[in-house]
């Protein structure tokens, strides 16, 4: 019996590629969660609810994509929430000062990557832990927000307003915002970069084992600095989307967003130590958090503390199931 059972041993690998199991499990669980929503609350089945999840999380998605790059290399970027706020704040204040929209966009989109680049350099060349560098970056960006203004600034610029209020939708009245399209574009580009470019593969290699990557002759320095720059860029884009979304810059917006984003990335199956994960997983992670939030709002009977407890509980249930499915398929 032994030898026969073993002759098939070489192909014992399940036909489903094992590395896709976590993402597929997450997708399945997400659908289950959506199903629960639909069965419990009638208006939940409305397609606009799904669209709203995207509209409301478009900027989170973009930031999470940037974070995925960083986490894939085994790093972490705590500055994202503050950079988002800073970008929105800078845009709002420049627009208030009457600068043309195009110029403001360029400036706003430059600040984030520049900060990211500097942080990347500090992390790589001075070998300081990413946590601490990006925490300083977080302080800095948030400090810039309150430095610019300690109260929120409205945006009345025509371009911003039209980006904000443009609805792209079907005759039935369902719609998405332009931000959602931008977010999708970012996701697709990022997925392509990670899967099909040399740089993308280097990101995985550095996350797998930076020392080995170095000895394999890969540009570790460039890759490391680049991911923080990309994260900065994504945060900047996220900041612009947020300023479309709220048509304002507020010093305290997006506080604690970094944790949500990291959570989304990790829930999406990316391992915090780096080297494995997909952008698509990150999309799912963001959706999971978005749907949980939607479920809570639809329920509408929870008081403030039960809200938190239920969010934690749903998160727990989700992660537990995800983990158990993962183990089963191993």
């Amino acid at each position, binding site marked *: 019996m032994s030898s026969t059972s073993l002759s098939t041993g070489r192909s014992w690998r399940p036909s489903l590629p094992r590395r896709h199991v976590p993402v597929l499990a997450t997708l399945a669980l997400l659908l289950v969660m959506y199903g629960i929503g639909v069965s419990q609350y009638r208006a939940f089945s409305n397609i606009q609810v799904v669209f709203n999840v995207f509209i409301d999380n478009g900027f989170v998605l973009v930031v999470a994509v940037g974070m995925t790059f960083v986490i894939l290399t085994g790093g972490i970027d705590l500055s994202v929430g503050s950079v988002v706020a800073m970008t929105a704040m800078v845009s709002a204040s420049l627009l208030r000062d009457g600068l043309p929209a195009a110029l403001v966009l360029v400036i706003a989109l430059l600040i984030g990557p520049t900060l990211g680049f500097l942080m990347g350099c*500090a992390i790589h*060349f*001075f*070998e*300081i*832990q990413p*946590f*601490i*560098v990006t*925490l*300083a*970056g*977080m*302080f*800095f960006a*948030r*400090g*810039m927000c*309150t*430095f610019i203004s*300690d109260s929120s600034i409205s945006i009345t610029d025509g371009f911003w307003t039209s980006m904000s209020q443009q609805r792209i939708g079907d005759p039935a009245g369902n719609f998405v915002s332009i931000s959602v399209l931008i977010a999708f574009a970012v996701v697709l580009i990022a997925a392509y970069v990670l899967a099909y470019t040399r740089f993308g593969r280097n990101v995985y290699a550095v996350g797998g084992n930076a020392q080995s990557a170095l000895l394999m002759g890969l540009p570790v320095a460039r890759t490391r600095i680049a991911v923080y720059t990309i994260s900065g860029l994504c945060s900047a884009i996220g900041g612009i989307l947020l300023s479309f979304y709220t048509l304002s810059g507020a010093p305290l917006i997006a506080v604690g967003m970094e*944790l949500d984003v*990291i*959570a989304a990335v*990790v*829930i999406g199956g990316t*391992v*915090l*130590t780096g080297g494995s994960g997909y952008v698509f997983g990150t999309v799912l992670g963001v959706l999971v958090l978005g749907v949980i939030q939607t479920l809570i709002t639809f329920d509408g009977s929870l*008081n*403030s*503390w*039960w*809200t*938190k*407890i*239920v*969010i*934690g*509980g749903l*998160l*727990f249930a989700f*992660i*537990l199931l995800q*983990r158990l499915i993962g*183990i089963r398929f191993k």
Partner: protein
Amino acid sequence: MTAVADRLRPLTGHRLFWPALVLVVMLAANTVYRPGFLAVEVKNGHLYGTPIDILRLSAPLILVALGMTLVIATGGIDLSVGSLCAISGAIACLHISGAADQNSPATVATALALAFGAALVLGAWNGILVAVIGIQPIIATLILMVAGRGIAQLVTEGQIITINSGPYRAIGLGHFLTLPLAILIALAAALLVAAFTRRTALGLIVESVGGNAEASRLAGIRSRRIVFLVYVISAVCAALAGFMVTANVSSADGNAAGLWIELDAILAVVIGGTSLAGGRFSLGGTVLGALIIQTLTTTVYAMNISPQTSLLFKAVVVIAVCLVQAPAFRARLRRRRGTEPGPAAPQREKEQVPA
């Protein structure tokens, strides 16, 4: 100049030298700004002054950071400590506020026991999620970070529970031998943890698990137990910190108590020289790190830096602290100043090294 540098080598080579230097520089800067900064006087039979405040206020952070150090040494992270502070403080204050005699030591003891019990349960919960179920630590503890705030507010029903209990208050504000009790408790805890890890083999085993989990498993280490244990220790430390935070203001605020302390604690651990990747840890470094953070906060107030710019100030200081500490940065500086031969001038060197 090199001679001096050489004589100082054993000192500068010490792990704790750079964090300690940073602390000293910060205190010195404050003293320059306000000469009275370091002044300590005796008031009502105990010491009074800014340094004492710093010590007292850093006590909860030291406690949380101690537990965090062990967690981080195993390669994990514990985001739930802030919520645990709030929960334990809330439970203790709730019990005391409901008691007939708030000043009775028995009441306070029961309150502490209840809160400790809760912390143990919640720490075990974290431990099970990480060690048994195998969820990534950051997510596993995020669950309790979110839900824990809710639990704390559930306990306080969203209100601030004010108490009036002398013995409980002493945890945060009492004095012993003219020194604040809080810092003594924190130091005792630090010594206890140090003894617990360095007098036993726990420290070695924690470092081994964090340094190479698979190798540790094959060496026969029960890494699950160890990982479980560190989360419980972290929770207990957080609970103790929670008592201090609430006793300090004689009230439990489910929302604000221990808010963002997890970030400060992680920062303290990292400044203290423990790597977030796990492995070697330094309790002394952590204590110094916590003192640095509290000094920084106090500096902002003492120098009356406007709240609008205080975060910028903090950013600059944190980055400076990291740079001074980073050996790579110092090496670069030295190379630039030319005290160390660079690869640029190898020939000349060769002549100095006769075969």
